[in-house]
């Protein structure tokens, strides 16, 4: 039960004066008691380093790590009472699974008897479905089994914090989904504050209370999964979150009555001013739409119409009831996720449209968000049954 705070935390590897690597740059993150924080970002962006600083395995070059308001920078890892799942599992190779699981409890300053520890080990092993493996050494286990032992070693105690470093990276897709749900459930049950590192945006979106998106060691955005999806702070976040990738086109923006007029190479459309919160300080913008928001048909559903265009289908990738369609439009390449794709073949012409509520606008120079995706209005513009699903 810990309120975790990172206050200007910075980590530089090597000599800061010379060619030191800034792995983490002035990070401010506040995780309320019991929250599930996910650190998300591309490889090498400093996620692991951040997690290690929280766990006390790495000392911040600057800034403070606080547990419940107490600065713990100089508290040793073993006194921080955190549990951690390592990226490479780090199981003790000379101990059986049973000993691996029980080791932390044995070393901890608790007054559990050997019998109680044994009971707890069995309980955790059952939860992770590794009871039959208890007498095996880690070397005899598959990657997925090792990963579950590593998870078990963390959750067997009741620490102040759970730290997970890509705990599901080595599992197959099926197991990854079940374990993801299980970690989520477990964390909600015990209510222990957690920090979870992943480079997988889908995993992050499903599991997180709050997502912190990092790039080059800098915090890009800290927010709920909804917020980072609908109102990404900048272009990087918008492109990193959501799948398939957002469609992006150059454009300019001007005012016309009670609407903003967006001009693109091959189309132009109006966005009512009530949909936009920020003042536009620039005329050059990047226009983005998510493949999920594109629907088939002429864009005159309800209210103001957004951009609409024709596209020639290049590739169709079915995913269950929907398909990701890559096509050529007069804007350039476009990716859409649509239903009702049966009967569609490469070479077909599609009429596509987007509701203005769903259009993203970014400052072309700073890449900061000007207009996000509005969900409040979504009910008004809900496309027909064959249309978009997020």
């Amino acid at each position, binding site marked *: 039960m810990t309120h975790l705070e990172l206050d200007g935390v910075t980590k530089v590897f090597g000599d800061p004066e010379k060619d030191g690597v800034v792995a983490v740059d002035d990070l401010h993150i506040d995780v309320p008691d019991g929250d599930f924080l996910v650190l998300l970002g591309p490889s090498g962006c400093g996620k692991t380093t951040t997690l290690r600083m929280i766990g006390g*395995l790495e000392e911040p070059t600057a800034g403070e790590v606080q547990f419940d308001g107490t600065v713990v920078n100089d508290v040793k890892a073993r006194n921080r009472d955190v549990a*951690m799942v*390592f990226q490479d599992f*780090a199981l003790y*190779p*000379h101990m059986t699974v049973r000993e691996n699981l029980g*080791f932390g409890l044995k070393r901890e300053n608790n007054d559990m008897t050997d019998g109680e520890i044994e009971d707890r080990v069995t309980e955790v092993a059952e939860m992770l479905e590794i009871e039959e493996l208890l007498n095996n050494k880690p070397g005899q286990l598959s990657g997925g089994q090792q990963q579950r032992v590593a998870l078990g*070693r963390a959750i067997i105690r009741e620490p102040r914090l759970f730290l997970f470093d890509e705990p599901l990276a080595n599992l197959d897709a099926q197991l990854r989904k079940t374990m993801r749900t299980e970690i989520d459930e477990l964390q909600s049950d015990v209510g222990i504050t957690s920090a979870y590192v992943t480079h997988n945006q889908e995993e992050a979106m499903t599991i997180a209370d709050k997502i912190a998106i990092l790039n080059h060691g800098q915090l890009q955005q800290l927010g709920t999964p909804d917020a980072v999806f609908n109102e990404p702070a900048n272009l990087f976040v918008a492109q990193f979150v959501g799948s398939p990738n957002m469609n992006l086109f150059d454009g300019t923006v001007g005012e016309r009555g009670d609407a903003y007029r967006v001009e693109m190479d091959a189309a132009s459309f109006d966005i009512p001013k009530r949909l936009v919160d920020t003042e536009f300080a620039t005329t050059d913008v990047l226009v983005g739409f998510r493949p999920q928001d594109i629907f088939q048909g002429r864009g005159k559903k309800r209210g103001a119409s957004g951009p609409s265009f024709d596209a020639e289908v290049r590739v169709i990738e079915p995913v269950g009831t929907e398909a990701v369609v890559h096509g050529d439009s007069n804007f350039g390449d476009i990716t859409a996720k649509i239903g009702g794709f049966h009967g569609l073949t490469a070479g077909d012409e599609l009429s596509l449209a987007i509701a203005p509520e769903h259009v993203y606008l970014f400052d072309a120079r700073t890449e900061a968000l000007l207009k996000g995706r509005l969900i409040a209005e979504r009910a008004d513009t809900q496309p027909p049954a064959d249309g978009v699903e997020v």
Partner: protein
Amino acid sequence: MATTTDPDTGPSTDADANAGDPTAEFRKNQSWLFDTTAGTYLRKIVVGFVSTVSLLYLLFPLYWMVVTALKSTQEIQQIPPTVFPENPSLEGFRLVIESSLETGGYAGVVENVFGVTISSAINVDVIGIILNSLKVSIGAGVIAVVLGTIASYVLSRREFRGKNALMSVLLASLMFPGTAIMVPEWELINTLDLYDTHLSLILIYGAMTSPFVVWLMKGFFDEFPDSIIEASRIDQCSSVETFWYVIVPMARNSLIASFIFAFLLAWNELVFALTLLDNQNYTVPPGLLTFVQGFNTQWNVVAAASIIVSLPVLLGLAYIQRYFVQGLTGGAIKG
């Protein structure tokens, strides 16, 4: 079609000859040695023959030692020699044990207890030389393992100037024949006033084997994943607990391998032992040499003594060799 296909030719190297065989296209790239029955037999025969010859080559000296110990002096000197002893006897062993008891000063005890009088022409205390050798070998092993491990840890975990040069010197010292630096070592032992002490041998053997231990243990530490130590810190271990519960058990095989290496070298070394010690302090190799007495050498006694002095080491190795192999091949980390 049937006229051209002959299934009995089996996998042939010639695809054209099997033009009608539907499996022919899977048999294009075949070798006689690996894909025909005859080739397979040839391979098995060659492998078996080579294995047998090497086995004989390795084991024959041992066999000869055992057989010699069981022969009488007469039979040993017979030409041509016999491969199997005609009248096996334990005479050689009796002589060794008697001389050992007498020279060791136990003859009186034996006479009092068993009523047997012992008088032996040879005066070598076999038990004494085994004990001397154990003392020297264990001492050298401990020195090599302790110093070598500490050095290898530093060489593996720390960066400092001259590290590569140091590693090269250590490697070079392994290639040096020990006898090349004999004279300076004698000087050193004399200066330290250690002549005719077992400590002198312990120090020399320890120094001779430490470089090997450094290389072996450096391999271990180089491979040792940091995250395991970090996991133990997260599991609330102090440094001492991490060392004792995690590092030592993981290093066990490598440590055992290092120890055995140093131990065996010390156990077998002759030249330093012969030159630095006086008769009564002899270790096993020079001790055995004293059984060899020119034309009067009783080879059955020498062989019997050799067997007796090998027994402790053989028994120890049989128990421990599994760790030795794992330690040398780095099986420690995989656990």
